[in-house]
């Protein structure tokens, strides 16, 4: 309103409403980026499909509680084209360093197709970085599934933590079991690994406790 009215706090002239609005919006941007520990707003190059996002959020809303002052992360898988069948798919997840360091709970959500003809025996391996030209591989978990639809498979968070690489590679190995445990020939597709029912990781991240870095350095 120009020089007529005076700022009640500092006694200076107040700002014109548009100028005040622009200032407040700039302050809002700074406050949000600072509280999310970001230097600038993220540039989203490949946002997840809306349908996959809606479905994943609906699953997580059922009874999930974020750790106090922690974060919950949903990371959607991308698959390598080389996988011949979904039963030897390589699922690739992009995590930030902080997310992979302070992980304390992890579940892999998989969608089993309705055409499941028996019991699906699934092993999940973590592919590590190459060492002396050999790829290191660690078994993370084994699960048996007898019903189609979504399954949340708990993974040991210790097995997922830590590498400096921000890329997490999980390889699925599955086969069909008959009632007596013998393996039967399997159809080409048993799991959804792309599209709206693609797998996703549900992670709970602890806050950065003071001293975490010291513990890790020690």
């Amino acid at each position: 309103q120009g020089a007529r009215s005076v700022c009640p706090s500092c006694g200076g002239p107040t700002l014109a409403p548009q100028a005040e609005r622009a200032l407040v919006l700039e302050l809002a941007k700074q406050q949000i980026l600072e509280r999310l520990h970001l230097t600038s707003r993220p540039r989203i190059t490949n946002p997840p499909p809306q349908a996959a996002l809606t479905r994943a959020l609906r699953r997580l809303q059922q009874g999930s509680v974020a750790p106090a002052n922690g974060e919950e992360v949903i990371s959607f898988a991308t698959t390598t084209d080389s996988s011949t069948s979904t039963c030897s798919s390589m699922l690739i997840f992009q995590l930030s360093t902080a997310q992979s360091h302070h992980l304390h709970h992890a579940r892999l959500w998989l969608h089993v197709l309705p055409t499941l003809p028996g019991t699906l025996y699934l092993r999940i391996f973590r592919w590590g970085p190459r060492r002396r030209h050999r790829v290191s591989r660690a078994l993370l978990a084994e699960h048996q599934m007898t019903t189609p639809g979504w399954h949340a498979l708990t993974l040991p968070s210790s097995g997922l933590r830590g590498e400096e690489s921000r890329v997490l590679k999980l390889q699925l190995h599955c086969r069909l079991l008959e009632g007596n445990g013998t393996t039967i020939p399997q159809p080409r597709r048993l799991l959804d690994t792309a599209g709206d029912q693609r797998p996703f990781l549900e992670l709970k991240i602890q806050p950065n406790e003071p001293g975490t870095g010291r513990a890790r350095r020690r």
Partner: protein
Amino acid sequence: TLTCEPETPLCCRRDYYVDFQELGWQDWILQPEGYQLNYCSGQCPPHLAGSPGIAASFHSAVFSLLKANNPWPLGTSCCVPTARSPLSLLYLDRNGNVVKTDVPDMVVEACGCS
């Protein structure tokens, strides 16, 4: 707490709703659609020093000290937030992951005089 009206000169809470669409950030902040960016403004004359805008006990302690000592203290009392609440955000990070986090002390709920 006092909510600021145009003619309120005393310490009060000024309410501002910020819509993320207005920031052009609705593509990466999924929920909520906006938030209250409130802030405190206004004068804190000596007789209001220590009045936190919610509980008066601290105010009465300061007031009796003011009476017991010199009535016009040299220091000044400022209009500051005295109660804040967290804001739950759902946003996309640079890898396209969905992050849900509760940002503590993000929204000013009450203002008072230091």
